[in-house]
Structure formats: C-alpha cells, structure tokens
C-alpha cells in the first residue's frame, strides 16, 4: 500500500496538511464563522424578543378582556339594583293609592249607611203617626166614641214593639 511508504509520503503530506489547516482555521473559519454566529445570535434574540412582545400583547389583551368582563358584571349588577328599586317604589306607590281609594269608599259607605238609617227612622215615625190616626178613626167609627190619643198611641207602641 502506498500509504505505508512513509519515507516518501509522510513529510510532504504532513507539511502541507499543517500549512493548509492553519490557513483553514485562522484564514477562513476564524474570519467568517464569528460574523455568521453574530447574525444567528441576533436572529435568535430578535425571535425571542418578538415572542416576548407577542406574549406581553396577549397578556395585556387577556387583562383587558378580564377588565371588560368585570365592568360588564358591575353594570349588570347596577342595572339589576335599579330595576329592583324601581319595582319597590312602584309597589309602594300603588299600595298607597289603593289604601286611599279604600278609605274613600269606606267613608262613602258610612255616609250612605247613615242616610239609610235616618230614612228608616223617619219612615218608622211616620208609620206610627199613620197607625195612631188610623186606629183613632176606626175606633171612632165603631164606637162613636173618640178615644184619647194617649191610650191609642200606647196600644200602637205595644203592637209595634211586637
């Protein structure tokens, strides 16, 4: 194998390998790779920054949504309170009106009842007079004797009390 013919093969290859590798490392890789590494780091940083910004934006959006929801809940509660208050007020007002109307009609009923009682008493009185006169006239016709008013009225009262 020519590879093991070291007297002819070793130094020429090793010398040029060393030279070329030094050129490769210091003249090519060391010059170019850091530039690329810098850009790749920048890119990674930019992507991380963008992701971070997106995360922050999402967080603030979430917070806004939360606040919106809370606000909505609060105004809903307020509206519910308003409705309840209005309902209570309306109920109170109608109750008061009802009570007043009841009182009015009770007064009217009382007045009417009083009038009825009055009329009944008057009718009673006039009935007694008619009965006494009628009884005097009947007794006078039958006996030709005029009875005393006192006697007749006593008899009428006794009969009416029955």
């Amino acid at each position, binding site marked *: *194998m*020519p*590879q*093991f*013919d*070291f007297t*002819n*093969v*070793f*130094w*020429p*290859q*090793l*010398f*040029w*390998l*060393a030279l*070329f*590798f030094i*050129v*490769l*490392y210091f*003249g*090519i*890789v*060391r010059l*170019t*790779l*850091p*530039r*690329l*590494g*810098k*850009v*790749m780091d*920048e*890119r990674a940083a*930019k992507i991380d920054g963008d992701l971070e910004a997106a995360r922050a934006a999402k967080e603030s959006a979430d917070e806004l949504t939360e606040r919106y929801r809370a606000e909505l809940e609060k105004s809903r509660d307020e509206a519910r309170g308003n409705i309840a208050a209005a309902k209570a007020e309306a109920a109170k007002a109608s109750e008061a009106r009802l009570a007043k109307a009841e009182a009015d009609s009770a007064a009217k009923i009382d007045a009417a009842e009083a009038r009825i009682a009055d009329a009944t008493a008057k009718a009673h009185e006039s009935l007694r007079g008619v009965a006494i006169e009628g009884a005097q006239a009947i007794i006078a016709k039958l006996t030709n004797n005029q009875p005393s008013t006192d006697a007749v009225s006593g008899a009428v009262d006794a009969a009416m009390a029955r």
Partner: protein
Amino acid sequence: MNPMHQFEIVKLHPLAAGGYDISFTNSALWMAIALGAIAIFMFVGTAKPQLVPGRWQAAVEYVYDFVTSMLDENVGPEGKRYAPLIFAVFMFVLVCNLLGLLPWVGAFTPTSHVTVTIGLAFIVFTVVCVVGFMRHGLHFFSLFWPKDANIALGLFVFVIEVLSFLSRPFTLAIRLFANMTAGHVLLKVFGTFVVALGSFNALPYVFGVLPLAVNVALTALELLIAVVQAYVFALLASLYLNDAVNLH
C-alpha cells in the same frame, strides 16, 4: 490495473526544507482544492450576513448549526468555544472525502492516506490535551482514575485508561483512512470488472453493464460514507473534547 495505484503520491513540484522532503504532491494539490472550495463556500456564504439568510448563507448556517448542536449535546454550554475548530476539522474531512469521489478528473483523496488522517487526529488530540491541562491542571489525570476503587484495581484501570486515551488519535486516524481506502479500492475493482467483462469479444459491452450498475450504487454508498465518516470524526473529536472540558 492495480487498485492501489490511485493512492500513489506523485511529486508535482519537488521541494525540500531543512533536510525534510516537503514536495508539493497530488495529495497537497487536492488538499489545496478542498481548501479553495471551503474558502468559496465560507466567504460567499458570509459575505453579507443577513437576518433572513440567502441560499449560500443558509447552507453555511446549516453546517454551523449542525456542529454547534453536536457540541452542545456532547460537551454542553462550554462546547460553543470549540465550534470553529470542530467546524474546520469537519469541513476539511468532508470536502476532502467528497472531492475524492469526483470521476474523470483524476481526483485524489487525501483522507485515504493515514499520514493525513493521523495529522488531523493529532490536531484534535493536542487540543484535547491542552484544554484538559489548562482547565484542570494535573487534576486532568483523574480522568484515568476510577472513582471508588482500591489502589490495586485503580492502578490496573489507570494503565488501561491511559493506553486507551493514547490510542485515540490512532483509532481516529485509522477509522477514517481505512474507510476511505476500502471504498476507493472497491470502486476501482468494480471499475476494472467493467472493462474486463465488457471487452468480451463475442458479445461486447453486455457483461460490463452489471459491474457498472454496481459501481453506480457503490458511488452512492461512498457518498454516504464520505459524509458519515466526516461526521464520525467530528463527533468523536467533540466527545474527546468533552472529556477534557468536563472530566467525569
């Protein structure tokens, strides 16, 4: 044709320095071509680095990302510092492996030479030792000492661990060299079958088709092996670095 002929080193420009033969050979030429290819790839890819990468930049970033994530998995957060080294080793092995598979142009595969792979392996080994001693000082030797063991067993394991540590560059080098050599020998053997069977006079070409089809499939396999072996080399290098950086 001798299937080993493709590994022959040809001196293109004889040179010598300090008594050492440092001739520019076909191996050096293909290392230079690999270097040029990597240079184009890297300099075009990072000419104007942008947040939204173009095609070239995306390609370089892909390889870079591959290396850094490998280091991150095997070494941890400290590993990123060694990304340029592992990147350079990975790219060099990968491009040498791949360029060696080019047909027609007389491609030579530097990584099929144990000299080249052992040179690369010793670069990794040296860095591992330097990093280990710089980070942990003499404490680095505790890498070889088993935890909770008595002296006799500890010494026994210590010897084994030291030997296995010292054999690492050789296994690393020989794995790559053997894979590349075997693949190229296989391709060449089936290539000679194409010629030998295809030149059957009574029925020309017909019998050459089968080994040719095999060679096409083998070329695909060799492409895979070229990439996988570069990956394995870089992966083992980062695992060895992990030992030096984190001890146990």
